[in-house]
């Protein structure tokens, strides 16, 4: 057991640090997942291209696919150093590179891969994930968006059109994405998991209409996406016909496999919380950081964040030794999402009446904690709700029984629906 860098790791870290010192953009306020500020998009794209040219984009991916041909540890070291420099410009690419492109790579032919992977790595194209619908987010297999084969469109190569009608919702980044992967129903007579198919889609296709959704935080990161007679070629299919459920699992596994602990700072936000508490006076004029309850809370946040960081490192160790990581990483998103919300609420409470102020000119820490307060509820829903994640841990890690399913063995079209 050794927590420190090996000589090779230290060497790589020094190299990365020097490169970042030279090249990292300063003073650009980054965009985070889900609430991309479009004015930052140019900066994000430029930085992604620069990283790709230097082999620092998708470090773990083979060079032939535009990656860095490096190791998992190297990609984590880079992320740590990038975050140390305060550069947060990867948001717009996270869904594409973290979920969509890996799905393409696992299912598409070489020609399709060549067409999409390189440009996505270089930040030239942005992807979105079109899974959730009004009819189902947790229960993705309940989606209703329909694709029907146009028999009249079969060409000399046997390729043909599917015509898509329906609606997606909560699609992060759809308003600026170039491409997406879309899950649709191709066989409503089959049971619900067996009648789905995945396609890649050009977001500029005729018949796609994107309507931005105003989030509770005030941001506008996700969208409703309407499909009216949108045509996709059968050659755009990812995976087998009616095997879309298994393909969507590839996507979601990739989402969950993105090893944590990478850019995670020591102690999460707890050290910042302590600094803030040191500056605020209590009833007696003493720093709030002397208050026992405040100290206990800060300690709890610190320890929880560190626990997550070290858990990431355990998984990373397994990966770097060519072993399959244990299931421990499955707790990461569940714990993290609530921890962030708790921290935000605690920090707002510390500020007493001033805790309501969101105006950066007047608020503590430029209103970072007020923004966090309003943004963190989404974290407990996006990418699997707390409840679904607990089900997954209970069932897949601990082996407890699955939920009672009333929708088994019934054709999709006969299932009861709610609102």
């Amino acid at each position: 057991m050794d927590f420190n860098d090996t000589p090779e790791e230290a060497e790589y870290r020094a190299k990365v640090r020097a490169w970042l010192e030279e090249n990292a953009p300063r003073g650009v306020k980054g965009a985070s997942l889900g609430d991309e500020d479009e004015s930052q998009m140019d900066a994000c794209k430029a930085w992604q291209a620069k990283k790709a040219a230097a082999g620092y984009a998708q470090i773990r991916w083979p060079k032939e696919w535009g990656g860095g041909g490096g190791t998992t540890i190297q990609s984590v070291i880079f992320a740590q150093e990038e975050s140390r420099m305060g550069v947060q410009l990867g948001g717009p690419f996270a869904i594409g590179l973290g979920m969509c492109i890996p799905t393409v790579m696992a299912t598409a032919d070489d020609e399709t891969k060549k067409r999409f992977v390189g440009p996505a790595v270089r930040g030239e194209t942005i992807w979105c994930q079109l899974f959730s619908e009004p009819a189902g987010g947790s229960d993705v297999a309940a989606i209703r968006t329909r694709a029907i084969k146009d028999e009249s469109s079969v060409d000399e190569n046997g390729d043909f059109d599917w015509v898509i009608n329906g609606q997606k919702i909560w699609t992060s980044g759809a308003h600026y994405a170039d491409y997406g992967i879309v899950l649709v129903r191709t066989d409503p007579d089959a049971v619900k998991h067996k009648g789905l198919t995945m396609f890649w889609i050009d977001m500029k296709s005729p018949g796609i209409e994107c309507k931005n959704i105003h989030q509770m935080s005030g941001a506008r990161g996700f969208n409703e996406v309407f499909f009216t007679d949108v045509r996709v070629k059968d050659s755009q299919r990812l995976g087998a016909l009616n095997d879309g459920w298994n393909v969507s699992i590839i996507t979601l596994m990739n989402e969950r496999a993105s090893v944590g602990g990478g850019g995670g700072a020591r102690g999460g936000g707890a050290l910042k919380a302590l600094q803030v508490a040191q500056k605020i006076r209590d009833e007696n004029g003493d720093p709030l950081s002397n208050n026992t309850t405040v100290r206990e809370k800060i300690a709890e946040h610190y320890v929880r964040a560190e626990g997550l960081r070290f858990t990431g490192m355990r998984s990373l160790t397994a990966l770097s030794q060519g072993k399959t990581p244990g299931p421990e990483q499955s707790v990461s998103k569940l714990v993290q999402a609530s921890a962030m919300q708790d921290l935000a609420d605690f920090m707002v409470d510390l500020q007493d009446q001033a805790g309501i102020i969101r105006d950066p000119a007047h608020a503590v820490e430029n209103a970072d904690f007020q923004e966090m307060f309003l943004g963190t509820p989404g974290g407990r829903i996006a990418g699997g709700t707390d409840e679904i994640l607990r089900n997954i841990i209970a069932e897949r890690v601990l082996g407890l029984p699955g939920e009672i399913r009333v929708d088994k063995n019934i054709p999709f079209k006969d299932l009861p629906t709610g609102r």
Partner: protein
Amino acid sequence: MNFDFSDEQLALKDEARKFLAAKCPPDRVRKLMDEDSPGFDPELWAQVAEQGWLGAAIPEEHGGLGLGYLELCCIAEELGRAVAPVPFASTVYFFAEALLRAGTAEQKAKYLPQVVTGEIIGTIASAEQAGPVSAANINAEVSGGKLNGVKMPVTDGVVAHHAVVLAKEGGKPTLYIVDLNGPGVSREAVNTIDRSREAARVEFKDAPVERLGEVGDGLALFEAINDRAAVLISFEQVGGADMCLEMAKNYALDRFAFGRQIGGYQAIKHRLADMYAKNVLARGNAYYGAWALNSDAPELPIAAAGARISASDAYWFAARENVQVHGGMGFTWEVDCHLHYRRSRQLGLVAGSARSWKHRLVTMLERRNAA
């Protein structure tokens, strides 16, 4: 970076698990708790000594195996899992560590070889009253080489042969070694919430002492020893917490209510998922502590605090909810849940409460922020 135990260390852990499953099954622990003078299993103690575990981290020159602290962490996890009724923590994590940190060459030579063989059971006597150990809370006093005062609770204080005692000399906190069978020492058992580990009230009246370390270094040494012990105890806690999760899971799979396994209800599933999450976090923090302990890293005090706070939380949660999942059965003497319920609190207090560790952690973070 390599954040895992080696294959050899994991093999040692596996061996320890098998050994304790055979020699220290839960009904043996429970039977011991029924006895008039509970809290110590001499037969198991002799077997543990035979395994060489007492000297796992004690250098070979003092008769130990000289393996290292990572190996000791592996053993600790299994002892915690088995709720072993032996004075292992008192003797190895506290008494032996105190000697290794602060003892002279003669003191080490005098005590450590007998610690390794199990002939000397040692402990630490720090607390005197409710509240954390601090300069203000120490009344025991040494003058002219004689100790006067009362220490309570002294874990394993009934069976221990020697104790490291924190007392003041001319107002300065200092550590001493005291022969508990020597003159001027009287002790009586005190009943505690964990009957699988005994504790004593120890009274000193002009008891002769042997100083350990310098006069005035007592508190700093005590904290350094406590940091080391906290990491090792965190492994016992992680072991216990994982055992609770396993028990709860197995019961939830076996027990039917309202026509299905109770493990099928989300109230149970989600609680066990939360238990798992806390255990994972505790293990991560404990590993960091293990690394810091084994490499004597400057991060040790912060790492120890993290390990202690996280493991205390995880074990208490797991122990308490394990009782709950067992329903009425969980509240009985015959079912093992209460062994962990008791032990989780014992371990959560014996090296200082979570409250005081949180305070200590933030004090260290303040120092680091200022630096």
